[in-house]
């Protein structure tokens, strides 16, 4: 319609000064017709009071050429998902224009519209249709999808009997067989185990080599760097930087170094169990010199300091935590009790316990703590599930220059590889001969 979008025939996406406003508080206020009527009757001429306005996107403009693979990065709540939703026509911009040419498929979630009661096969058809595939197209690709998902023998079983992993694989199998001109993907890669993630990344790579335009949001910097030809960093609803992935990621990561986020405040956490006589108040990451650590990397030496507040003397408490991956896999469960440390009495007031880690052998990912304090008198003093976050960043752990990312698993071990001298000698002899 508007000619300025047609300047470039190879242009896949044009975003022009897009803004999206959310009015906070309006939802709770208006959801009841009853209340709306009452407020209209009681004060018909009063202007509704000013509500909190949140600009999820503010004057965002960019263009994407056909065949580009663009990664979108930024903190939670930066507006990334809103941008994807605006591009997918799920939500509409308050102002500005969006133009996407060609067939568009958006994958904001794996297995959208899956129904528990339906079988795997039925869900494939339903999900395919929801994602915009024609019936014949799904039928033609069914075998390939089933193979990808590895659910052949459960194909006619209702998916309520499926494990979470099977469901994910089934959902991604359908998605991987989409054949759009423009593909929009939200953090779907952040779910599933490492093997599954690798499969997904391979599928994405396949799309790229197929000349498709891909826009994807990820917290997995390694994936963005490996897959994307371009990266856009969004913060507070605005484009902060748009350019080569390596540079944009570096600039983005640097902001973490400047941010004072080394301390997770737990004082205001309401969702916790226990007697409350002693409570965790915060988790702090420190380097071995006791200075706050801005970025935690694989292989770092660090101190994790757990702050607490006791309202009265606490005899024989045990401090402990469980560490989980983002997907809820328990990585480790440890405590002062496991180490047979007896603490006869914790006096009232503030204090802390330190956990010294010489070599953090966690691979880059986001981890969560579930913290607990138990005692003798009352079994649980404090228990908070999934509270403090531990963001582990990439690093050169093997000093080989090859970075390990979350696709390599959850942990790595200090290790050495030995290849038999004879083999190496033999091989060098052979190459010399040829």
């Amino acid at each position, binding site marked *: 319609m508007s000619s300025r979008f047609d300047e470039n025939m190879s242009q896949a996406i044009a975003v022009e000064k897009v803004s999206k406003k959310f009015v906070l508080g309006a939802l709770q206020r208006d959801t009841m*017709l009853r209340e*709306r009527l009452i407020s209209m009757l009681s004060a018909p001429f009063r202007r509704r009071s000013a509500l909190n306005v949140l600009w999820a996107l503010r004057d965002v403009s960019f263009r994407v050429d056909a065949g580009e693979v663009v990664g979108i990065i930024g903190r939670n709540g930066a507006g990334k998902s809103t941008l994807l939703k605006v591009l*997918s026509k799920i939500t509409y911009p308050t102002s500005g224009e969006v133009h996407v040419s060609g067939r568009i498929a*958006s994958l904001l979630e794996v297995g959208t519209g899956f*129904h528990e009661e339906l079988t795997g096969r*039925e869900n494939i058809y339903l999900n395919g249709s*929801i994602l915009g595939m024609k019936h014949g197209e799904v039928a033609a690709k069914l075998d390939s999808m089933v193979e990808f998902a590895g659910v052949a023998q459960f194909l006619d079983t*209702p998916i309520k009997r499926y494990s979470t992993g099977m469901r994910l694989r089934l959902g991604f199998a359908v998605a991987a067989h989409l054949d759009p001109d423009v593909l929009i993907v939200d953090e779907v890669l952040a779910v599933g185990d490492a093997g599954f993630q690798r499969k997904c990344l391979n599928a994405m790579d396949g799309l790229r080599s197929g000349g498709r335009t891909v826009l994807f949001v990820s917290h997995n910097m390694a994936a963005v760097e490996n897959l994307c030809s371009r990266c856009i960093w969004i913060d507070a609803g605005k484009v902060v930087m748009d350019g080569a992935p390596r540079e944009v990621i570096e600039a983005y990561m640097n902001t973490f170094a400047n941010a004072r986020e080394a301390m997770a405040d737990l004082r205001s956490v309401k969702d916790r169990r226990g007697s409350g006589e002693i409570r965790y108040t915060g988790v702090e990451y420190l380097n071995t010199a006791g200075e706050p650590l801005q970025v935690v990397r694989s292989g770092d030496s660090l101190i994790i300091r757990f702050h607490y507040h006791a309202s009265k003397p606490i005899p024989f408490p045990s401090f402990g935590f469980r560490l989980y991956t983002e997907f809820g896999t328990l990585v480790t469960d440890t405590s002062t009790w496991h180490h047979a440390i007896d603490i006869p009495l914790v006096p009232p007031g503030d204090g802390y316990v330190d956990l010294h880690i010489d070599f953090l052998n966690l691979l880059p990912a986001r981890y969560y703590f579930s913290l607990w304090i138990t005692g003798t008198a009352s079994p649980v003093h404090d228990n908070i599930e999934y509270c403090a976050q531990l963001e582990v960043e990439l690093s050169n752990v093997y000093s080989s220059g090859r970075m390990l990312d979350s696709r390599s698993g959850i942990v790595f071990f200090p290790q050495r590889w030995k290849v038999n001298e004879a083999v190496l000698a033999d091989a060098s002899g052979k190459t010399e001969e040829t």
Partner: protein
Amino acid sequence: MNSEWFTDFWRYRELLYFLAWRDVKVRYKQAALGASWAVIQPLLTMVIFTLFFGRLARVPSDGIPYPLFSFCALVPWTYFSTTLSQAGNSLVSNSSLITKVYFPRALLPAATVLSGLVDFAMGSTFLALMMIYYRVKPGWSFFLVPFFLGGMILLAFSVSMILAAMNVRYRDVKYALPFLVQIWLFVTPIIYPIAFLTPKMKRFLAFNPMAGFLEGFRSSLFNTGHMDWSLVGTAVIITTILLVIGATYFRRTERSFADIV
């Protein structure tokens, strides 16, 4: 209203079919009695109506056995009322779809309107058996039945669009719905024939398009000979108006569905 809304709807017709298919599948898979619910519900209502209104209150029934008279109206009425209550919630109960995928939102109430027809077909089969049992033969006017059915489908779709869209914004619509359906039952000639009413009440009832469609449905099925065309005409006009209002209201509100649902 631009034509894009309609072309989009047409382009996604396959999804409409799949959503309706899902509704049907899920409904029958979860229920122990499966498809028989489609017959049991109007059948039990018919038994109760026959006892209280046919036997005790001696409500006239146009010379047709009362059980058949009421069942004939209860089958389309059950379709209509179930559709309203389910379609009214269709957007809210599919919020996970609305916030994750683009498709014409009107497909959701439309799918409910469609899927209910399966129940309607089962009920109709039972109705045919009853007609055989009571030896009531349909006459020449039988070919008008699809017209009245079509009217009811359009009416159900129009009202569903309004209710579904309102329900996204105002969640208490959900509580008002059963009440609305209940009142609607009594102002529709299901228990009684329209001829039972005084002319004044009749005029009042004409504003209910279901009255025209149901009365027409029954007259054409049993060929009672007194088709009230003015009543039917009013029903058609009011349904058209409701369809325009429903589509306009839906279209104006659907852009914000994903933000508030």
